[in-house]
């Protein structure tokens, strides 16, 4: 688990412990470089996430893990948004590993649906991915005001509807991202995390 100064670092290792996996939490590029798999958590502002990743010296080692070593990497919530090239919320370029932009949720004026999208919602698997069978028809907890719009529809592994369909799960080769919080999604989240770590 990449510690870059933001995100709830307690809950995910707790859940992984339940499936017998002891995750290391680290901000040290040397430790990240040795990982078999990586989870990039995160909540909050896009630019803060970008800045913190740079400040921790993690930018290049993460890119290397993603594209040279090609280890499985899972971005959660802001961690998924950071996979994009840019966000309407900020000014700094994201990791850019999956082409596309993060935009704010906009509801029609007469909609009962409010932003942020807070609460449980279901995911429909749209394309094959390592997580397809643990996301399809499952429900997860969402807490966000922004959504990732990938340039290439092939990157959309799972879709959720809140006023309109949006990408709730993205996938490209060894890289995965989920907009929701598996660590707060009860048995559905536990199954997803267990699948990701290969437990």
């Amino acid at each position, binding site marked *: 688990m990449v510690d870059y100064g933001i995100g709830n*670092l*307690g*809950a995910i290792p707790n859940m992984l412990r339940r499936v017998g996996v002891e995750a290391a939490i680290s901000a040290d590029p040397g430790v990240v470089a040795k990982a078999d798999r990586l989870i990039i958590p995160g909540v*909050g502002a896009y630019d803060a996430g970008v800045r913190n990743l740079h400040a921790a010296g993690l930018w290049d080692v993460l890119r290397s893990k993603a594209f040279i070593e090609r280890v499985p990497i899972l971005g959660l919530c802001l961690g998924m948004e950071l996979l994009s090239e840019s966000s309407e919320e900020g000014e700094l370029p994201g990791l850019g590993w999956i082409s596309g932009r993060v935009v704010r949720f906009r509801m029609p004026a007469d909609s009962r649906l409010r932003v942020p999208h807070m*609460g449980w919602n279901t995911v429909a698997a749209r394309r094959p991915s390592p997580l397809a069978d643990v996301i399809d028809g499952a429900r997860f907890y969402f*807490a966000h*005001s922004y959504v990732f719009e990938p340039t290439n529809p092939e990157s959309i592994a799972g879709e959720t509807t*809140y006023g309109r369909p949006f990408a709730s799960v993205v996938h490209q080769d060894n890289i995965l991202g989920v907009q929701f919080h598996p660590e*707060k999604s009860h*048995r559905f989240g536990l199954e997803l995390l267990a699948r990701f770590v290969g437990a």
Partner: protein
Amino acid sequence: MLPPRVIPCLLLENGLMVKTVEFREPRYVGDPVNVVNLFNQFEVDEICLLDIGASRNGRGPDLALIKQLADECWVPLAYGGGIDSLEGVRGVLGIGIEKVVLGSAAIESPQLITAAADEFGSQAVVVSVDARSAPDGSYEAFFRNASRPTRESPSNLARRVESLGAGEILLNAVDRDGTMAGFDLELIAGVAAAVSIPVIACGGASSRADLPRPIQAGASAVAAGSLFVYQGRSRGVLINFPERQRVEELFDSP
């Protein structure tokens, strides 16, 4: 989309789980770890934990207890009580709590709302609006455990904290708290109409069939205390929560 969130709202005082009536006379309900564990087994949508002792006695959050409760809980936990600084917000969010609930701090140090939202995102910042009604039928927001008037209407306060960065409003009808006399739908409709962020309505749930009413009045989620910790009006303690299918049925009927 799934049915709206149904949220147990649990109160802590001196490390014990308690229940109040009109924000007064806390009665012991159980051991917090056991209670949270039960609700986790019931697969509730999320849990709201409010430490009424912290606010009253000028103490900060009991981080050791909160961490224990967060560890028990696989669904989002919101915590409020005694958070009056950004360090306080950081401390609570760092141990597994999903969202902080700011009460008196929202009145006394409103800049904290913005600071917390800037650092963690507004989805992590809930502001509690505790409303009492006046004899003339109007409503006023109170703070400090509903003991001090703000001289502001709940709708105005809600609007103001939304513009400061709050992501949700936890609307407490103080007069209905612990009474199981029904929700104050007029209050809920007024505040829900005043803001564009989600409103969680709490106070007065009389039965499970009552739960959809705040949603019809404009709330995005509904919370309850007595309904989920007591067995009916006799107030015998029984931690309970409707099964998922029952919740879906409740919200399906027009």
